[in-house]
């Protein structure tokens, strides 16, 4: 579904991402793991249209979408749950979901809202609450549900477990697992490598702006060098 080839993104002089290539097939759950500052968020932001890559190509369902705007990418079926969630704190839970579905035909929106209410009981209980009052875990669920409102074909998530208490981390990963079981195609950047590898079909290891390893979840989990990559030796 998604083909990325030779992607390079710069911040002025800094090459935050160098020559990255990866692919995500329909129905797959692919992880992007690696130490911090490695460039994982840069990669996702480049794919979502928030950053413009200086080199490389991105192909979505066979169509070249390199350098497209976020608005266009969303309409093509590529949704991003951004790092730090970025929910609209002054809007209610319902309004956050509604705006997630702004590209969906009006008639379809209410059924989708009902679906979300059912899938995310925690959100249903706080339907009219201002999103700024949600806890970290609830906010993360809202961010994911909001992205699902656009009925994406590929769902990208940037560090969903960031800053969450261990119990909430469980909840979030369970959520991701259930999405996987329902056949969602996902590309997930995660700091929690262990959990990500348990859940993903495949994963890429990103370090210092480049992809340094690739494999199935099982393969990478058993690889001793992974630890070294993270803790340096």
């Amino acid at each position: 579904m998604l083909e990325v080839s030779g992607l390079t993104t710069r911040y002025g002089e800094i090459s935050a991402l160098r020559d990255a290539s990866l692919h995500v097939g329909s129905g797959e759950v692919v992880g992007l793991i690696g130490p911090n500052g490695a460039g994982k968020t840069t990669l996702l932001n480049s794919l979502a249209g928030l950053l413009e890559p200086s080199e490389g190509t991105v192909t979505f369902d066979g169509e070249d979408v390199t350098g497209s705007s976020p608005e266009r990418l969303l309409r093509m079926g590529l949704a991003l749950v951004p790092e730090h969630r970025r929910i609209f704190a002054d809007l209610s839970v319902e309004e956050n979901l509604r705006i997630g579905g702004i590209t969906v035909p009006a008639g379809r929106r209410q059924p989708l809202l009902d679906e979300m209410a059912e899938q995310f009981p925690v959100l249903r209980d706080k339907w009219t609450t201002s999103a700024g009052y949600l806890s970290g875990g609830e906010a993360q669920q809202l961010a994911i549900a909001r992205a699902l409102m656009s009925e994406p074909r590929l769902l990208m998530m940037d560090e969903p477990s960031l800053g969450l208490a261990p119990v909430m981390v469980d909840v979030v990963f369970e959520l991701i697992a259930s999405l996987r079981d329902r056949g969602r195609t996902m590309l997930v950047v995660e700091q929690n490598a262990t959990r990500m590898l348990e859940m993903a079909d495949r994963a890429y290891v990103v370090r210092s702006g480049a992809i340094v390893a690739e494999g199935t979840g099982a393969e990478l989990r058993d690889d001793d060098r992974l630890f070294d990559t993270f803790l340096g030796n």
Partner: protein
Amino acid sequence: MSNAMTHHPSRNLRRDVAFPVVGAVLLFGLFLGAGLLYQGLLGGHERLVTFALIDAVIVLGMQIYIGNTGILSFGHIGFGAIAGYAFALSAISPVEKLKRVSDAPFGLVDVQLDPWTSIAVAVVVVVLVAAVVGVGLARSGAESGAVSATVITLALLFVTHELARNWPDLTGGDRAGLSFRIGGALDTRVPIYLALFGTILVARLFAQSRAGRLAVAAREDNLAARAMGVNPLVQQMLGLLLSVAVVGVGASLRVYEKGSILPGDFFFNLTLVTLVMLIVGGRRSVTGALLGVGVITAGRELARRLGQDGFEIFGIGLDDAPLDWIFRENLKTVFLGSAMLAFMIWRPAGLLDDWELDRWLRSRFGRRRSEQPTTPPVVEFDDTDALVVREVDVAFGGFQALRDVSIDAGRHEVVGIIGPNGAGKTTLLNVITGLVPSDSGTVVLGGVDLTGRPSFEIARHGLVRTFQNLRLFSALTVRENIEVSALVAQKARDHQPPDVDALVAAAGLWEVRDRRARELDYGTSRRLELARAAAMSPSFLLLDEPTSGMSDAESTAMIEQVRLMAGVIGAGVVVIDHDLNFITGICDRIYCLDCGHVIAEGTPAEIQADPAVQAAYLGSSAQG
């Protein structure tokens, strides 16, 4: 190079005084020459040139503030109004004053001073007002781009205008105003020449002075400047007072030349004209401001002639003199407004950006120090200045960012802080350096409690930091960046900081010392940030992810860089980073943070073997 040298490491008389003087003479000559050329060869109106010269004084006055601080002031012409009226009331003879403002308060009718004393009075009055306004601006948090500062100055413009219109006893009101007797106006250009030359000189000298350069640093990056010990409010106030004094001189001359003053003379129209002149030429440079005056004066004149001939072409027989004036006036306004728009859209930095004639001359003709200075020797560590952080708690809304965090660091040590993203490392650094208040806990350096103090004070006490997302003074050169810290350190630190050139060389930046910071590649930028922090000669260097974005080779090289810098200034180091190669290579001790509290502490070997650390980094499996 020993520290016993008597020269100031960051003041360079040739660069900061000699060349600016030469440049000022040349600029004055060029500007005046252009004006006289227009007068003589092109049959230009003498009065136009006279007013252009006076406008140049006013525009330069504005440049001193707007250009160096980056704060957009709409109110300088309001200051001009105050000065203009003060001048008029002082200099106009009692006979003339009786005609217009017979009931003037404070016995002003009887006052008559000679014009030069009157200008001095006007300057004193307007500077006093500016001091009060300046306090207000500081309180409102003025910094480059701040809306509130612009609004306050705009309000000032309106207040003075309203006062001038509605206090006829003092100002002669809206229709009559004040005026000198016929023939009492300024009839020679000599004072104007003197004022203009003086202004060019003062503007350049200020920009090269300590206050000017610190103001520019704050303009480039307010936060970073404060982290280097600069108190932007002081520099901005100095800039404001100087700039208002200059505008006061210019405004007085304007009144004197015109021979009268009306409220409308110092309101929106003059504000537009002077701002456009400043913007078009380049607000960051004195040369630019002068160029802007020239360009806009020429443009307005062209527009005026076009307007004049234009409607004649259309065959409209307008004998009506007032209407004539309106047409001409407004074509000029269209021209000015369009120029403003065009430059904002296509070239916001103006024609010259911050190019200065004397700096160019110096780069062409000045003698440069060619041999690279030797690296300064390593300094004895003073171990009495330990950093003690105790029981710090920070909560953002409902989120507990830091919980009961305590760390210790000695000046002989390199202490690392590691932990996954969101663990609170940068928050801790922000608390220590005063960017974020803590809910409880203390930060003590060498026995002095620094908790909750403003960041510039903490920096001056000896805690200096670098930033995760690199905050250099981008328009300044490598050397100038480092000089900012050195300038602060000279006054704020007890002992002499190392020679700036020596630091530049030690950081491996000698080759690029005259390049602007924004032109550097990433690794070099990081080293510059480190050197700039070191130039403050602090007790501790607090580095926030200094190797972020670097390749493995660069990270390894950074280990040596940090050791070298710290050694040269005798500072302890506290460093946050994710690159554990770097951390284990450089640190004597490491703290590991997760979810806002310290989960492990020890030597690099101990930390790497600690299962809690491993779990924090790699993540743990389901809790069950």
